[in-house]
């Protein structure tokens, strides 16, 4: 029998302490709040799953969740294909490639609230370039008055802000494909589309998975930009989950429901990422026919 050595625990302790201090304990505080009614710092009542039941019945919350889902899916549907297309169009070599890389990365360097402010001005029909241009073209555009316009403007802003991230990831993925693949495809007589479909896209799978997860999680937690641009309005057309949560926790100081909702929010993101990840793992790797294993 091997001698048992317990020293390894010592090596794990720093990590456990760090993670506990920075993640587990704060999360447990939220769990703690979610099962109590905090009336004042001294008075608190244990309410069990009451808050969870309450937030599940909250129509505003369900509305925000629906808007959030549609928004995040729209973000993915636009940014992923657009990012791939951009990456394919970017020059691969020479000084132009460096120049384009810098240009593409600019929007990623701008702080969220500044992005909101930029678009707030950009969309104004009196002094904003886009707003004025749309108005001049005869559109009755108003992101403050029209719910659809507001929603589309927030989407457009997110696309403007984050598509470069997808493009840069894909660009890196494309550069990692060895030349031999393109040469072999050329010898095999593959069309440009076939090269994309059978070489580039499969080789981008890894970076696309990262891009999809990052963009999904980030867009699902979007807060600052719509807060600055529309403040969630008009009505609640652009009130997404995190904004609703902030209203509850900070605005109304309903710590119990806000905590319960935070946990549900966290689980939703976890679950959706899990589903997305597994789905993307399977795409293109599952055996097309099981006969081969027979």
């Amino acid at each position, binding site marked *: 029998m091997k001698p048992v050595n317990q020293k390894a625990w010592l090596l794990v302790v720093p990590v456990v302490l760090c993670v506990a201090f920075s993640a587990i304990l704060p999360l447990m505080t939220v769990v703690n709040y979610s099962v109590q009614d905090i009336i004042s710092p001294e008075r608190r009542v244990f309410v069990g799953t009451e808050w969870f039941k309450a937030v599940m019945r909250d129509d505003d919350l369900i509305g925000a969740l629906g808007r959030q889902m549609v928004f995040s899916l729209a973000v993915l549907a636009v940014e992923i294909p657009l990012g791939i297309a951009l990456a394919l169009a970017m020059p691969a070599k020479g000084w132009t490639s460096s120049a384009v890389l810098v240009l593409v990365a600019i929007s990623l360097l701008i702080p969220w609230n500044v992005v909101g402010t930029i678009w707030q001005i950009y969309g104004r029909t009196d002094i904003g370039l886009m707003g004025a241009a749309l108005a001049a073209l005869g559109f009755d555009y108003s992101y403050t008055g029209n719910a659809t316009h507001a929603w589309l403007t927030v989407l457009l802003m997110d696309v403007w802000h984050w598509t470069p991230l997808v493009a840069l990831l894909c660009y890196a993925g494309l550069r990692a494909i060895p030349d031999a693949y393109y*040469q072999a495809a*050329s*010898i095999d*007589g593959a069309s440009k589309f*076939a090269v994309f479909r*059978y*070489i580039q896209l499969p080789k981008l799978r890894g970076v696309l998975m990262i891009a999809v997860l990052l963009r999904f999680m980030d867009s699902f937690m979007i807060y600052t930009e719509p807060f600055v641009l529309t403040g969630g309005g008009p009505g609640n057309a652009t009130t997404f989950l995190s904004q609703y949560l902030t209203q509850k926790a900070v605005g109304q100081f309903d710590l119990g429901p806000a905590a319960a909702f935070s946990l549900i929010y966290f689980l939703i993101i976890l679950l959706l990422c899990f589903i997305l990840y597994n789905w993307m793992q399977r795409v293109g790797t599952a*055996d097309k026919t099981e006969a081969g294993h027979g």
Partner: protein
Amino acid sequence: MARIELDLAHAYGPNPQRDEDYALLPLKMTFEDGGAYALLGPSGCGKTTLLNIVSGLVTPSQGGLSYDGRDVTRLTPQQRNIAQVFQFPVIYDTMTVAENLAFPLRNRGVPADRIKQRVGQVAEMLDMSGQLNLRAAGLAADAKQKISLGRGLVREDVSAVLFDEPLTVIDPHLKWQLRRKLKQIHHELKLTLIYVTHDQVEALTFAQQVVVMTRGKAVQIGTASELFERPRHTFVGNFIGSPGMNFLAACGAADGIEVAGRRLAAPKAALSGLGAFTLGVRPEYVRLAAPNEPGAVPGVVTQAQDIGTYWLVTASVGEGVDPSLLRARLSSEQTIPRVGETVWLSIVGEHTCYYVDEDLIA
């Protein structure tokens, strides 16, 4: 299937002036239809450049090449209808083995039943019939490399199959199998095969004709035995064989030649009138001799290694005058001299070669 004629040179940069600017020095040669050729040389000697020019991935900066008399200098690999197998297996990850093999035919619009038939035949030839429905991405490197090869063979009218060090990533025991498979396929299909490698064993066992290259120049084209027996260039003598040829500085004298401080009778009349030249003899042809035997020189053994089936004995000859090392491959059955002993080694014989300025003269 095609006879490939080359008359070209290539430089990657513009305006090549010196020899060093060329990746491939001016070269004129022919790959005969149905021949199996190997391009052999160290890294950076231009062999892959030459291969890529033949396949059409690189356009030569000077001159051109033709397939069966048709000028193809400006044609793409697809138009030349060649197949190429690369150093690292190239397979289409999302496809099954069968779909991979069918891909070149599908791109060319071949009818489905014909594709099925061809894929079946090629899979049979490569012993992959049982794996047709497996995803290619999950296979081992040697199977992937067979798929790369199969994609070339699936087109019946392919002009030539080119290999760019295709066995680099294959396990040694599978290398032999794959190489045998290649030879068998060459035998059955009579394709023109060109094979790039830096491994002399691979080149000599695979090819009928080996092109030895160094520093952008094809220094000798010949069969394995020609390269071994009559290296036309000292580089070939050194590169082919394990260990390579021994070279000793020599010079012609009135009544013979001087080598390693000894005067020997001129083995060939042409040598006596010559100035400085180099004598080359393979370790396999150096044998132990009796003292003062004609064509032998004395030397002090500096190393004796048992290589298993033979001994490799290194002796220092020409002490005091022109010392150099001479290696001899001796059969284990004879008495092997020990380190420090003085031995006589015969270096002049029918297998000895003579070089001036690195080129064979006799």
